[in-house]
Structure formats: structure tokens, C-alpha cells
């Protein structure tokens, strides 16, 4: 059946201004509509003995055997074949944010847990506006203060970003729980694979400024375990550090693990065929990434530590 074959992970592009739950429900409704539109099974047949129209002989009743469809299997009595689909959501996006949003269907939901345990970084494009500050750090909040921003230059901004990156690097090393004095730690650091593999506060692994045109600016942020409100708060704090104030105009996720904006399906393509194609095309790279990270994790730390004990 088509619903059982539909299993895997794929990404959609969530538009801004819509809650993630609504996006998940919209995809589910659309898929259910297309699955139910396909012709179902033919109804079961049953043999019934109906009284004959012309009576046979004498007192004995004439019965005619007839093969009739069982009415309980009629589509109007049974209802739609598929009423629900198991669609799970990956890392969530809040209402004002937009971007790559990973969903899993059927057995693909197990891959979602594995992806969560991989702790891969996510990349955001964050737009900011100097000159005002609001209470919820976004443009639609209540205004708290207005300031001048003529003194801000690109170099000052990049200096602040470097400071942020430095402090977050220290936090990264601390929360990844690796002893820094070992050879394995050095090899991981060279490959850039040091990151916390458990719970941690939000950590920013890389920041850079994409555009700077006063009063607007745009940053690209690579981060782990973040929430979108944390990123908006960061924009607000950047404004404070630069002795001015800033609000966040846009938070857009352009990458979630291996899924990029090119893999994400826009709203016009949320149908059965596009989703099946998307699942197929992304399947290979999701599996390689999971194997590399989770398989690698076991090999590098535990396995080698075990070998170390045996040697000594």
C-alpha cells in the first residue's frame, strides 16, 4: 500500500508567520487527500440466498443463490482508507522564523532521533536593524528605546563577532567533555569534529557578516542547540556592545545537518510525488552522515580508550 511505502526524511521550506505545527498538519492533510484519492480494494463478495420471484413447487420456498458485494466494504460506509499519517518534526522553527524544516514519515521518524543525537550544526541567516530596541528583540515588539548608529562601522562589528566566536569556542571545548591533552582530541580538533554530544546551552561555532549597509546588516551564524529567540537576543546584545541598539528582522535557517535550501520543498510542491522524490534523493546522504557521525563516535572515543587500557 502506498502509505506503508512512504517512509523517510525530507525537508520543507517553512514560510514565516506560520506555526510549525500547522506546516506539519498541512503536509499531512495534503498527503492523506492524495492517498485516499487512489482507488481502493474492491469490496468482498458474499453469497446470499434470496427468495425467488416465481415460487417453485408447492410449500417449499425457492431460494436463488446470488453473489453480492458486502455493503460494509462500500466506500461510503467504510469511510476514507487513510485517516492519519505518522509525520514527525525535526528541529523546530518558531512562528516568525522561516527556513529548512525537516520532517519524517513512517519509519523515517527513527532517523529523526538519530539525527538529533548526531548534534550537527545548523546555519542561519539573521538580519538585523540598528537604531531601535524592542522588548522581544524583533521588529514587531513594543519599542523600548531608539539610538543613533552613525558611529558603527563594519570593522567594529566584525571585532564584536570575533569576540563572540572566541567565547563560544571556549564553551564548545568545555561542553564537549573531551580531555584536551590526548592525541585523539587533537585529531578530532584538526578535522573540526569537536562538539558537545549531549545537552548543552546554545553554542555558536562560527559567525560572519554577509552584508553591512547601515542601518541594516546580515549575519551568517553556525550554531548548536539554539533557539531562534536566542539568536534574536544575540542581535540585541550585538547592538548593545556597539553602544547602540538593534532588532532582529529576519531569522532564516538555510541548513539543518545535510539538508540545505536546495533540498527543501517550497509550498507549491507539497504533494505526494515531490515528497517521494525528495525522500529518495536525500536518503543516501542522510545515511552516510548518520553512519559517519554515530559510527565514528563509537570508534574514536570508546573503542580507542578500550584499546588504550588493553595496551597498558
Amino acid at each position, binding site marked *: 500500500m502506498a502509505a506503508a511505502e512512504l517512509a523517510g526524511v525530507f525537508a520543507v*521550506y517553512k*514560510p*514565516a*508567520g*506560520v506555526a510549525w505545527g500547522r506546516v506539519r498538519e498541512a503536509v499531512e492533510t495534503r498527503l492523506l487527500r492524495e492517498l485516499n484519492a487512489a482507488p481502493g480494494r474492491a469490496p468482498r463478495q*458474499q453469497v*446470499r*440466498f*434470496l*427468495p425467488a420471484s416465481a415460487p417453485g413447487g408447492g*410449500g*417449499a*420456498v425457492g*431460494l436463488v443463490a446470488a453473489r453480492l458485494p*458486502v*455493503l*460494509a466494504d*462500500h466506500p*461510503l*460506509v*467504510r*469511510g*476514507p482508507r487513510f485517516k492519519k499519517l505518522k509525520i514527525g518534526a525535526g528541529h523546530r522553527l518558531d512562528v516568525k522564523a*522561516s527556513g529548512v524544516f525537516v520532517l519524517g514519515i513512517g519509519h523515517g521518524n527513527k532517523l529523526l532521533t538519530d539525527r538529533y543525537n548526531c548534534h550537527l550544526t545548523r546555519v542561519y541567516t539573521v538580519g538585523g536593524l540598528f537604531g531601535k530596541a524592542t522588548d522581544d528583540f524583533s521588529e514587531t515588539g513594543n519599542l523600548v528605546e531608539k539610538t543613533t548608529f552613525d558611529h558603527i562601522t563594519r570593522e567594529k562589528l566584525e571585532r564584536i563577532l570575533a569576540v563572540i566566536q572566541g567565547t563560544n569556542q571556549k564553551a564548545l571545548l568545555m561542553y564537549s567533555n573531551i580531555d584536551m591533552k590526548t592525541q585523539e582530541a587533537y585529531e578530532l580538533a584538526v578535522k573540526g569534529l569537536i562538539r558537545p554530544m549531549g545537552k548543552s546551552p546554545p553554542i555558536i561555532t562560527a559567525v560572519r557578516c554577509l552584508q553591512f549597509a547601515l542601518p541594516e546588516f546580515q549575519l551568517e551564524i553556525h550554531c548548536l542547540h539554539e533557539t531562534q529567540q536566542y539568536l534574536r537576543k544575540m542581535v540585541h546584545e550585538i547592538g548593545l556592545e556597539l553602544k547602540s541598539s538593534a532588532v532582529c528582522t529576519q531569522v*532564516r535557517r538555510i541548513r539543518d545537518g545535510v539538508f540545505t*535550501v536546495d533540498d*527543501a520543498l*517550497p*509550498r*507549491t*510542491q507539497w504533494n505526494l510525488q515531490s515528497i517521494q522524490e525528495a525522500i529518495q534523493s536525500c536518503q543516501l546522504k542522510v545515511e552516510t552522515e548518520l553512519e559517519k557521525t554515530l559510527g565514528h563516535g563509537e570508534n574514536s572515543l570508546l573503542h580507542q580508550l578500550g584499546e588504550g587500557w588493553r595496551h597498558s
Partner: protein
Amino acid sequence: MAVWARQVSRWCCLLNTARAVEFPGRLRSRGPRACRVFAPAAALPAAEELVPCGLRPYSHGAVGSCSPPDGAKGGSFSSPESNLPPVQQEQAKAEILPDLNAKILDEGWDDIPPSSALEVISEEEAVQIIAEPLLPLQSSTLRDYVDHSETLAKLVHLGVDLSQVEKRQKAGQLLLTLDFEKDIKKILLFLKDVGIEDNQLGQFLTKNPYILGEDLESLETRVAYLKSKKFGQSEIAQMVSRAPYLLLFSVERLDNRLGFFKNELGLSVKKTKDLVIRLPRLLTGKLEPVKENLQVCQIELGFQRNEIQQIVFKTPKILTASKKRLKQTFDYLHNIMGIPHHMLTRFPQVFNSKLLRIKERHMFLAFLGRAQYDPAQPSYISLDQLVSLPDEVFCTEIAKASMKDFENFLKTL
């Protein structure tokens, strides 16, 4: 045959002696309502079904269909709307049956020797034994009964969606107690007289199964009232098919509602009638939200009274729209897209479309530099084209770009 009649007659005697007075009463009142409070369960009593079967002499031999029992039930039960508390009946039933069974077993062993299944019987008797599994006493779906009830089978062939009907409150119960020949046929003929087509009847009954339990005379009075208000035959047919609950409203209620709309909107009688014919759901819905929506349009959105009348006449759906959505859409159209009030009065269908759609299309046009909504200037784009065209047509004709460009742009928002 002898075996069957013997057993059944034995049960009959016992039942009649044991609960001579109360049992028929219980039979009568058990049918119409749900035994369980939550599901529209049918109270088809299997034990009592056997009793009427057995009492009647075996001349029909109708083994397949159970229409005689249905008919008997329909005939012997009183009005379908009896409101006896279901819980007490349930408990009383639970008390009775174990009692009776015990009595049957006790007395059965004593006087008459039980018949053996290995007894030799004649061919005619063998043919007439009903060997079907019993119908469930309670069920939450009509699937269990549809093969055994001619009424339900005929409704399915008409096109009624039983899977939706059984989800409604007490609707499934109502359908099981009605008989096609006696009750339903009259109402169907009445609906055909009103003007509903044959192929629409199924959909109509799916949305409003309760009309099958209505009194024919009151329905005819209501149609006569509508005719007295100078609604034509085809107009009444249109209203009834679009708002299936219309004929369940009493004449006073319909009168009140028509009067309400005439007063609130201030349109002429002819225009109010036209409005009601196009959106008859206004008559069956609640009235407070309509009043509030009119207030919102006047006070918060800032439309003049004559502008509101024009908008409501063109798109009556605005009266039943949600206020929050109305405010958000207007805010975006007026403050961000910069469309003045008189343009919105000319194209009120923008209020019916989704805000996300308007936003995306406007931003795409702004990105391309084609966001021009002022008819005085060149390359003007009208608002109804902005919202009502499908995506491909919008991209190629209005925005003069390909669908791929539109999708790539959507991914940058």
C-alpha cells in the same frame, strides 16, 4: 422447524410469565436512543429479534434479509424522540438478562428434554433454519448493520455517506429506527418537490440526516412561508441545497433572521433576498458574530456605511469571516501594500483569500518591480487578479516570470 419453534415457544412462555407486564414496555422504549451515552449505538436486541421471528409462523422463510423484524420494530415502537434516561434502562437490562437465562436453564432442564443437535429433521426444516451469527447489540459504527438493513442499504445506494453520518450525535440511531418505505420515502419525495436533484440528495442527507425524522407538515409550512415571502421555486431549491439545515428552523426563527438582516444591513428587500439566496448559511448560523463583524468593519477598518453595504453585497462571506484574520489582512493590504479604501471596496474578494498568499505574491511583484495597484498609472495589476488566479497563470501573465523563479524567491523569504 420443530426444534426452533419448540425452543422459541418455550422462551416465549417463560418471558411472558416472568415479566408479563414490564417486558413489552421495555421492548418499546429500548429501541430509539443510544444505550451507551457516548456512541450512537444501535439497540438491536438479538434476543428480542428472535422472539418476533419465532412468534410469526414460518411462511416467508426469508433467510437472507431481516426486513420483517425491522418492520416489526418500526411499527411497535413509539415516537423516535422519547427521552427516557438510557443509563437506567441499561442497568435494568443488565439485571434482567442473567436472571432470565438462569430461569430458562433451570426450568428447561426440568420439564422438557432438550433437543439434540443430532436429531434427524426434514429437508424443508433444514432449509428454513437461520444460521447467521447474531447482530451485535451495541456498536459504534453502522457497518455492522448495513448488510442486514434494507433501509441503510437503500440510503447507501442513494449516495448517503454513512461513515460521516455515524459520527453525528444520535443520527445513526435515528436512521436505524426509521423504515424506508414508511418514513423516509415521504421526506425524499418532499425534497424532490422542493427541487433538489437526485444526485444531490445523498450529499444533502449526509449533511443533514435529522430531516428524515422531521414532521412532513411542519416542513411544508416552512416552504409555504418562504414562498409567501416571494422566494421563487428554483431559489428555494438553491437555498435548501446550500444550507441543508434551513428547513429544520421553525417559521418564527426564519422570520426573525430575515428581519435581522434587513435591519442590520440596511439594503433594499430585493437585495437582501438576493444576498440570502447566494449565502443561505447566514440564516442558519449565529447572529452575534455577524453584528460584531459589521462593527469591526465600521470602527476598526474605517469603512463608510455605504462602502460596507457594497462589500457585503459583493462578498457576503465577510460577515462570517473571523475578525482576527480580517484585521490582519486589512492591516497588510492598507498599511504595507498601500491600497486605499475605495480600491478595497471595488475588490472585496481579497478579504476572502489567505494572507500568506497575498504576502508572497505581493513580495514577488515588489521584488520584480511590478507592484502597481493604482489604475491611473501604467502596468496596473488589479487586486482580484492578484488573488484569484492559480499560481502558474499568475507567474506567466502577471509577474512575467517562470514558476521556478517564483519558487526560488519563496525560498528566500
